Each structure stands twice: as C-alpha cells, then as structure tokens.
C-alpha cells in the first residue's frame, strides 16, 4: 500500500512503529509513539503525535509539522491500541499487532536456514529492520496481551538478540504467554539454550516442527541436509534446560504416511513434549507454489492421523489437531481439534452456514477456499 504524504516534502525517516489512538486528548507524554486516527477535520492544533492517520483523503496538515497519512481502506479496521509499522521511504504500512487479537504473530527476522517445501511464509534476505520494529513495538503493546507468537523466518538466527527480545517481552508484558516458532536447530548450542532458559520466562513454549522420524525424510521436506540432526539435539537441549517444547507436524502429501511412526518416535524420545500439534496445510507461500506436490486431502489420511493421535494419547502426551474442519475429521478426533486459524484469515464456506458444529469448527484459511477437502459438508446433528 502506498503511503501518501500531504506535505509533498520528501519523507526520509527510517521505518518506525506507532500505536493507534482515536483520543485527541491523550496525555502529551504518550503522543510521541502514537498515531492519531482522525475521524474528521482537525479543529485545533494537536501537538506531539508522531503521525496522523486519516481515512479521508481531503485532509491536509495545517501549520504544524506532523504528517498526515492516508490510511488505505484495507487497513480501515485498525483500532485503539493496535500497532502499525510505517516505512516512509517505500510507503509501506503494516499492522504489526492488534490489541483485540489472540493471535499476534511477530516476524522477528525474515531469514531462515531451512526451506520447507510447504513454507507458508517463505524466507527472505536478512533484514535487521524487522527485529528493530518488533523491539520498538513491545513497550507499546497492551499489558493484558494474552499471548504473542515470535515467528520468522527463523527467530533463533537472531542469536543473542533473541535472548534480549524475550527478556524485554518478559519485562514489559509479564503475564503474556510467549510461543516461539523455531526449527530448533540453533538450540543445539547448549549455552544458547541455557541463556534462553535463564530468562526464566514464566510462560514460554518453543514450537518446533518435526516432519519425520528419519533424518533423510525430514531433511528432504525442509530441504536442508543435517537439519534433523540439529533439530533433535535442539529439542533435547531445550528439555534439558526445562524449556517447554511443542512439536508441530504439518501434514503434507510427502509425509502423511509417516504420521504413526512420527508419533511412536515422539512418545519414545520426546515424552516431555507439552503438546504435539498436527497441522493442516495453509496453502500460501511455497505451499501454494508446490500445491500439487504437497496438498493432500484430509479425507485421505483420516485413519493415519487417528492412529498417530491415539499413539500419543496412549503415552499421555497432549495432542492438538490444527486447521482441520470437523466434517473432514473422524469424530474421534473432534475433542483434539482446535479453532486454530488466526481470526484475520479465518473464513467459512457458503455450505457451512447451516452446519450444526460450525461454532466449534476452525473453519478455513482465507487462502484455502479454493483448495479444500472433498469431505466438506454441513453436519446436521451435534456430536
């Protein structure tokens, strides 16, 4: 989205983050890090706000220095307390954090040392800005934020900076649960893992993907030789440092047949996992590009998924099934299915309108309306 600046002067400032407010009488001490969302014309000078956002194109600045930025209609949903990143030079506006969302995922670095064939967020070149924007945004977040996800790219490639970031989050948001999505490879360095553990974050989980019980198969899916070996050592180090580990298995055409033996491997080697998540594919990014090779209809792996879940339950390991519509799942797995799709990309199909279990169904990724299971149909009776 292109950022229009009404002053016509070239705006060379480095990217920054601002918190949205609609209250023109905010304490002046807060205004420096805030953007006032204008509902109408400015009647009196409002000093101190970093920037003004306006949905009305005709507004112009008066005598003061502050910039007025036209907010594109696609971002008209922003509300008080949301945080937006502004890149003046490229004119890029992005919502970094939504106060009302339970699923705030922060991209802390775009780079990654794996290249998973179904990656929903394909890695890009290293870019220090992503980290700095998140770093600056943390103090602006609501103290009651229930949870944050640190995502990437690969967050652990930040090294020391990740440790500092987690520490900062603990300080500013002491009651916020934190989920770090990582391939775990860097956790093979025990000293690094210990540094993270010694933050003593009270509610920190590392979500680490495991696509097979065999190194050559896992390495194939993540397209990186040696990745499995490092990930396994990382998982063990995390457990050794008493960090909580969630294992995440994205189900694709390449690995659906391996599900039961992945479960067996986990129950024997990683019984300390606080959760094992079986995840339906989100057909964006590389998954979309490689759709024919990675997409598998959940109706084709129902029995295998059931066996895999049951194996873990025999070992009293907590299981979650993410991104699976209830009608495409065996009813035996309904209690394990979570409404896992982030609110902003969550949709239902027209035929879901009359479904009796829609209220407990995760629905679809907005990106997945074209690609979905043949089993999708409204269910008439509950349970």
């Amino acid at each position, binding site marked *: 989205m292109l950022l229009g600046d009404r002053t016509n002067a070239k705006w060379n400032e480095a990217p920054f983050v601002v918190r949205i407010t609609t209250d023109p009488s905010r304490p002046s001490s807060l205004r420096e890090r805030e953007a006032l969302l204008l509902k109408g014309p400015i009647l009196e000078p409002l000093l101190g706000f970093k920037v003004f956002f306006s949905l009305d194109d005709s507004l112009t600045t008066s005598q003061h220095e502050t910039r007025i930025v036209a907010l594109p209609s696609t971002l008209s949903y922003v509300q008080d307390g949301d945080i937006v990143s502004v890149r003046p030079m490229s004119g890029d506006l992005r919502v970094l954090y939504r106060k009302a969302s339970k699923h705030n995922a922060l991209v802390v670095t775009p780079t990654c040392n794996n*290249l998973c*064939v179904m990656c929903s967020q394909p890695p890009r070149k290293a870019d220090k800005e992503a980290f700095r924007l998140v770093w600056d945004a943390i103090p602006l977040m609501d103290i009651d934020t229930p949870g944050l996800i640190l995502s990437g790219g690969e967050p652990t490639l930040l090294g020391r900076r990740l440790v500092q970031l987690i520490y900062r989050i603990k300080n500013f948001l002491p009651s916020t649960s934190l989920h770090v999505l990582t391939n775990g490879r860097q956790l093979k360095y025990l000293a690094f893992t210990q540094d993270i553990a010694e933050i003593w974050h009270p509610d920190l989980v590392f979500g680490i993907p495991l696509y097979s*019980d*065999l*190194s*050559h*198969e896992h*390495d*194939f899916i993540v*397209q990186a*030789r*040696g990745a*499995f*070996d*490092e990930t*396994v*050592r990382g998982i*063990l180090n995390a457990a050794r440092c008493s960090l909580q580990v969630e294992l995440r298995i994205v189900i694709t*055409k*390449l690995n659906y047949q391996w599900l039961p*033996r992945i479960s*067996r*491997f986990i*129950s*024997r*080697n990683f*019984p300390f996992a606080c959760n094992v998540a079986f995840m339906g594919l989100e057909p964006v990014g*590389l998954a*979309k*590009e*490689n*759709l*024919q*090779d990675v997409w598998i209809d959940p109706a084709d792996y129902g029995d295998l998924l059931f066996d895999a879940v*049951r*194996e873990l339950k*025999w*070992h*009293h390991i907590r299981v979650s099934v993410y991104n699976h519509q209830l009608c495409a799942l065996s009813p035996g797995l309904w209690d394990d299915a979570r409404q896992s799709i982030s609110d902003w990309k969550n949709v239902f199909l027209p035929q879901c309108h009359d479904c009796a279990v829609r209220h407990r169904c995760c629905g679809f990724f907005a990106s997945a309306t074209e690609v979905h299971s043949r089993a999708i149909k409204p269910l008439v009776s509950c349970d």
Partner: protein
Amino acid sequence: MPASPLSGQRHFRLQDDFQPEMGMYQLLPFRFIPLDAKQYVLTNFVGEYCVVERESLQALVAKTLRPGSTAYGALKSRQFFFEAGETSALHLLATKYRTKQAPLAEFTSLHMIVPTLRCNTSCIYCQVSHKSAATASCDMTEATADRAIDFMFRSPSSCLKLEFQGGEPLLNFDMVRYIVESTRRREEQAGRNVSIVICSNLSLISEPILQFCKKNEVQFSTSLDGPRDLHNHNRPSADFDSYDQTLIGIRRVRDALGISAVSALMTTTQASLSRPKDIVDEYVGQGFKSIFLRPINPYGFASKAGAMTHYSTAEWVEFYKTALDYIIDLNIRGIRIREEYTALLLRRILTPYGTGYVDLQSPAGIGISGILFNHDGNVYASDESRMLAEMGDPHFRLGNLRQDNYEDMMLSDVLVDTLKETMTEGVPGCSDCGFQPYCGSDPVRHYRLQGDIVGFKPTSEFCERHMALFRHIIGILDGGSCASDILKGWMY
C-alpha cells in the same frame, strides 16, 4: 514418494537426493533373539525393539540393508545404527538410558513392615509359615517400629511406599496405628510423601479401622483367588468363610474409602490352572479394573504343600495366555480390565521409563528397591528373603534394627555382593539375551531353587517364564490387531 517434477516455480531437491547411501552407517550395540520360526526380536540397551525377518538381521549386520526399506527405517528410527555425520542418535540413546536407569538413583522406595506374624487364615500356599492368631510372641514392639521408620526416612526416594505385611496386620492394629501416625508426623516434618498400604485378608475390618484409614489416607491390598470354591480351597480359615469375609471387606473399604482404595491380587495354585476365565470373571464381577496373575512362590508352605500346589512353568504360562486372551477379548467387548504384570512388562517394552518393580531389576531390586522389617527387628532384602529365613535360611538377612545401623545393613556384604553379581548386562545367559533390557534378576528365587544367586538360566523357571511372557506380549504387539491396541492402553 513422487519423483515427478515439482509444479511450482521453485525447484526443490527431490527425496532421492537425501537418501542415504547403502551401508554408510555404524552399528550401535544391540541384542537379538528368535521370536518364532521366521522372525527375530532385536533390542538395544535403552529397550527399543524391532521385529524383523532373519534376512534383514543379516543385512543389517552385513550393511547391505537397502535404504528406503521398511526395516532400514524402523531400525534407524530406533537407533540401531547411525549414519555418517549424525550425532543425534547418540544423544537420544544417552537420554533414554538415563531415563530408564533413573529408578536406581531413587533408591529404596518400598518399605515393608511386618507388625505381626499372627494370622487367622491358613492359605495352602502361605509363604510365611503362619502362626495362629493367639501367638503373641510374634508382634513388633514400639521401639523396633521407631527404628524401622527412622530407617525408611533415610531413603532418598521421592515416592516412599510403606506396606504392612503379615501375618495379618490387622491382628495387631495397635501397632499399625502407631506406625501410621508416627509416619504421618515424620512425613510432615520432613516434607516427604509416603503412600501407605495394608496387605490384609480384610476379615477384621471394622468401622474404627476404616475411619482411621480414611483420616490417614491408608489403602488396602487383598487377595482374591477366584470364585468362592477356589478361593476357599486356596485360602481356608477355621473361623469364617474366607470368600465371604474378603468380599464383605472389599465392599466396606470401597464404601468408606473409595472404589480405588482396595486392590486385589491372586495366586495361581494347581486348582486355579483349569479356571482362568472363572478367575477373571470373578474380578470383573467384583468391579475390579485390574487383576494380577501371579504364579506361586516357592517359599513357605507353598514348598511343603507339594502336589497340592505344584505345577510346571509351561502349565502356568498356558494358564496366563488363556487368561490374557480372555481379558483382551473382554476389553474388545467393552469391559475394561487389565492384567497388571502384563502392564508392567509393557511399560518396560514400550516406554522410555524404568519401573521400580522389585523382582525385575538389574541390578536386583532387593534392598535398593524394596526392603522388609520383620516383627523381631530383623531386616531382610526382600519379602522373599524373609520367607526364606522363616524356612530356616537367613542368607538375605541384612541385620537387625536393634543392633545394626543403616550404613552397616545397606553396605553389608550379602547385599552389595548380590547386587554386583545380578546385573543382567553381565550375567551368563542374560548378557546376550534379546530380552535383557526388559528382564531383571531375582537372586532370592534362584538361590532358593538353584542354590545360586545368579542361577543357571537354561533350567531356571524364572527365565523360562519371562522368555515366554516376552515372546507372547511382543507377538501380540507385532500382530498389530485390536489386541495390540488394547495392550497399548495399559502402558501407564
């Protein structure tokens, strides 16, 4: 996997690019043993197992196993070998070995106390040489009890368990009360947690006893050998109908303390052998969710009773298999009941965890998993050691609470030497057995039956029985049917 060109713009390396090269692996230690005419069970020292055909075993060792074959994947996944450049297999094995051996560091968990040797039943297989209810000379004194409790709290175990054995403990309930109250006091001071069980025939259960047990969180374990005729045949009493008393007792305990406050176990006699289903049905009918099928112990009256109780190991194994099949069948039909010894073996086979069961440890569990304080202050390395002493052979007596201190007894030659010689990892006949990681040592039993704490495995009934159990259970697991699903539900 599809080797078709990938559809997207990105070009990924295909799975073949990641396939390991033939034979490029290093073997890790493992043992093997035939399962049946065609298949072998391969196990490693952390207890992972794999059932393969003889050809695959040969190929594994000759390094001609085809990467991509099912056997290759199954063996790699269980760390029977590791490929060049990978170290995670070693880390996984190390973690699992520590996990499996963790109970050793826990040290003694089970502390058995015999408050009296008096008893009011005359079981045909009694392992203790019961004394009649009137004989008062075999009661424990408070001074001895104090020393036993001191001894127990010396153990570093995080799950201390105090078990009253007999005789019939309730014939000296004053002493039981004294020990329980004292333990609960000490427990609070020490910040420890002790679970307490009374092994009783329940004939003397009374309202005050139940109230006391409720207040002090004491549970019961009893014996139920089967239907009325079988139970009364095995466990007769001159004073009452043994079966009725047991059932009344079970009901009263459950009413007062909850359904799970009483467990039961059975002992197999000659008379039981033909009636596995009747016995299981009795347990189901009485609302038990578990049954413990036990062969008879070769101690006490059991060894004197001769023909009355004698049967071969093979006969017992047949009995066990029939009962287990029936139990599995009941589960498939929706009736939940499990066999406890099978569950114990399943934990050893299917989970990374070690188990504390005294008779199946390496080194042996005597003394360091469980220990027994007799009414007279004698300390024995196990319940069976005490039984042996009652028969006149005090070989496994570690000392007496009145004269010897903790260190003297726990470091006594008889205990330390026995432990040193009972590590199955190095015992002849065990060290190269495929079932070694699941099995253990029972030195007292081998000493009793073969005159040697290690024993001679080719003629050892302990070995014969356990080999049969392991083969049977792994056979079911490997069969992959409903039966294997049922068994997997018993692991924890």
